[in-house]
């Protein structure tokens, strides 16, 4: 069965530190890839997505992600985090021909001022 793995369940960083959250998926076919964020008390919001083309994708709020097909990975990065980035981050995969998303278990990021 297809799965999505997020290796870090809880990450604590100081402001201005760099962030990288790992995401790996197990499906071998063509996929669309997403990162969602859920800020405390808010709904899930799309940070960025990859469908095709340039494997380095830039999203909102200074986030970016790189799709490495050979590694089945789609890691999320931000060079300098802010306290307002405190949230839970979810990687998700959509297989070609299906509408459903398969999510990872989420990574809770806590940024300390």
């Amino acid at each position, binding site marked *: 069965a297809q799965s999505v793995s997020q290796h870090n369940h809880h990450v604590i960083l100081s402001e201005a530190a760099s962030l990288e959250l790992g995401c790996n998926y197990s499906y071998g076919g063509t996929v669309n890839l997403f990162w969602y964020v859920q800020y405390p008390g808010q709904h899930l919001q799309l940070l960025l997505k990859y469908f095709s083309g340039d494997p380095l994708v830039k999203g909102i709020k200074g986030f970016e992600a790189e799709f490495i097909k050979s590694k089945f990975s789609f890691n999320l990065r931000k060079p300098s985090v802010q306290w307002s980035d405190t949230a839970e981050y979810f990687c998700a995969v959509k297989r070609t021909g299906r509408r459903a*998303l398969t999510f990872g278990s989420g990574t809770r990021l806590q940024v300390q001022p």
Partner: protein
Amino acid sequence: EAGVTQFPSHSVIEKGQTVTLRCDPISGHDNLYWYRRVMGKEIKFLLHFVKESKQDESGMPNNRFLAERTGGTYSTLKVQPAELEDSGVYFCASSEEGHGYTFGSGTRLTVV
């Protein structure tokens, strides 16, 4: 534009009772999805409507769950009878064809 609206935001019910969750998608969005997150685990797909038709209900856990989408507008998800393991956050999302999802804020269901 108004987003995806879910209510109630929280529901606490006793085991064996019935609960109905509601989702109002963005107007004009034919696609409506239900997802669930149980006990801090991954968010799991439940089902997908296209207008009033169930396109994919492969994620529905068992026959205690019934989803409907009246006239292709709002959707309800009924759990009857509720069990302890049904506790979690139920998310709804909607989309236009070829576009990404917009999620609602979720309904936190606690079965005691």
